[in-house]
């Protein structure tokens, strides 16, 4: 964990680490719940979801662990928390699993989004828009095998979608993406892609080019992976696995207005 204004070779302010934490050194996702002050991390090898107190530090045990045969967890690499509706979303291949936020132990998902109508071949990342009641899923679509241009789409569902639900709309042709984030108040989606972050509107549909790009192309980003938003400072913050770095971009224009048509 680093201070929000950290820069350069800044010292960490704290770390959750060690055997007691049930973490390893190969954790690929993290989500923060500002309402309940909790952190969620997927344990991909142990097929578990670890929940820590927001202020946890050092060799601490998670306060809850979701793990067991009922969970259907396979190789969870990403997750998202909906702190308003008390849910945790986990993309798992052709499925998105939804758990109660306060679940612990061997619990079944309360909803599973899966089926041919979902268009999902491989769900990569999820984000929740509680303002508009939307679930945004970055995924490789069915039928996209071997098609690099179609390797990712952003499918937008009703937040309460379950089973073989159809997306409300799909932003297509966006190539390979990693993590995504949404900012409901500004009505935009951030998708981490090839050496930059693309920005789309939540109401975009079909083959729409990004409204803005951040950090590239031809910028400092090489292989960006994670993205988050600090709305108060109007910053977008990105991690890059080639640079092993955290980069903060000031993008006030993003929080003021977005182009509505292109």
């Amino acid at each position, binding site marked *: 964990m680093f201070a929000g204004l950290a820069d350069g070779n800044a010292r960490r302010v704290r770390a959750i680490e060690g055997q007691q934490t049930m973490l*390893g050194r190969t954790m690929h996702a993290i989500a923060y719940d500002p309402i309940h002050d909790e952190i969620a991390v997927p344990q991909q090898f142990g097929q578990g979801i670890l929940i820590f107190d927001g202020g946890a530090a050092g060799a601490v045990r998670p306060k809850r662990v979701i793990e067991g045969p009922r969970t259907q967890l396979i190789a969870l690499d990403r997750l998202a928390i909906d702190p308003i509706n008390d849910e945790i979303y986990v993309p798992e291949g052709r499925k998105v699993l939804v758990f109660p936020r306060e679940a612990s132990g061997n619990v079944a998902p309360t909803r599973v989004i899966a089926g041919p109508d979902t268009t999902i071949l491989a769900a990569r990342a999820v984000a929740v828009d509680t303002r508009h009641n939307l679930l945004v899923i970055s995924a490789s679509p069915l039928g996209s095998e071997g098609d690099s241009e179609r390797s990712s789409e952003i499918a937008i569902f009703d937040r309460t979608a379950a089973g073989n639900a159809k997306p409300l709309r799909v932003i297509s042709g966006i190539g*390979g993406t990693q993590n995504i984030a949404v900012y409901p108040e500004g009505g935009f989606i951030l998708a981490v892609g090839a050496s930059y972050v693309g920005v789309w509107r939540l109401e975009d549909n079909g083959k729409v*080019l990004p409204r803005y790009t951040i950090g590239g192309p031809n*910028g400092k980003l090489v292989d960006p992976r994670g993205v988050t938003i600090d709305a108060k400072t109007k910053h977008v913050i990105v991690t890059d696995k080639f640079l092993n770095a955290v980069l903060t971009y000031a993008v006030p224009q993003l929080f003021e207005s977005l182009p509505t048509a292109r």
Partner: protein
Amino acid sequence: MTKPPPRRAFIHAAVAAALVVAAGDGPRRVSAHRLTSGGDGRLVRVEPIDDDPGICVTASDGQLQRALAASRAAEASAQQGRRRASMPVGGDRVGGDPLRTIRDPNAAFAAVAVDVKRNEVIATDENLFQILAYSRTEHTPDGAPRSTPTRAIAGERTQIEFQSGIFVDPESGEVFVTNNDTRNKLAVFAQGVNGDVAPVRLLDTPHGAFGIAVDAAHQEMLITIQHDSAVVAYRKMADGHESPIRVLQGRHTGVADPHGIALDPRDDVVFIANYGSTHDVSSSIEKRTGVPSAGNDAGKTNWPLGREWAVPGSGTISAPSIVVHRRAASGDAPPVRVIQGPATGLDWPTGLAFDAAKRELYVANDAGSSVLVFDALAKGNAAPKRAIKGGRTGLANPTSVFVDAANQELWVANFGGHSLTVYPLDAAGDVGPRRTIRSAPPEAPSLMIGNPGAIAFDSKRDELLVPN
């Protein structure tokens, strides 16, 4: 000030500046100037330079940093070019350059090995993706920012990234490194190479290769696979798309998020360090799509079952352990012994090394910031025979250990300390290192950001949360 080792300059076209190496009778200063392009990444010039006792480490440091920065910039540009085509570019680019960048500019040592024959210590750097070599007797003087490596293997051609394991062949001097989590390759470099050079062999590995042990008697190498909780054995000289000769994987093996591996040639067993988390795999279930996979298993035999074969909900997160297997074990064979329990002190046990003469197993105990030493036959909830631990040791998140039997020394790579530290083999307790090679000033924070796949913003504390 400790006298630094003798040096001379190698100038390498690919990195477009001088790197520093050793030769001659006394310390020498390095200068970067006219370059001769070989055009193929080879060393193109060797240039002795003027004597300048007392400042050689500092004087050459800036040049090395510039050289490595240039190499890394070229690699970044190449990677950007490859990725650019995969996502459309539409609207205006906003935000310009980053307002702030949190990044450790220094090497973070992850794995270490000594080439006794050539009196060299070689370490991997998982932060800047380099393999750095130093004189075995190097010691960073107090007041110097860092030691300058005698050579540095880095750049696009090397195909290295997050190199978590290393083996240096004591005869040939070849350097074997495992790439963990992002590139599914084992790279082998010829002895003495420098700069942005291609490996002489590049072998497909399953996703998540971590540790490596090589058995000279049977000409085999064994590699741990984190993501599949497996150990694969290859011919020592395996290359390209060659398949492993056997695989150890399954619930009964006790292998669970394995890291380091070490060989006991007398008893013909291997020790495997485990963090403890794993899941079942089964070839009898429907192969899943969309789960992370290396995708390089086509046509391979003896390949571990990946996460597309994971049994849903079968995962467990257990206590760390060291399991002992017959070297030739395969399939779902149970271990012959297991070291596990609270008395062991294991806390993210990572690198392993075995002292065949003294029959002792060394463990780089990452989260414990200690080195634990067990008897070769230890089992169960055994306490270590001794431990190196404490404020004087210089240990900081150690991830690799190496036993230099010829010189009766123990080497430790401190991932969280920008350092390689050296101890007598019988060191115990809160003992200071005999020598230290630093890659950064002692006060420089060690960020340990490695493959940051995500980020979250803690709005309550105004903090950035970065998983590794």
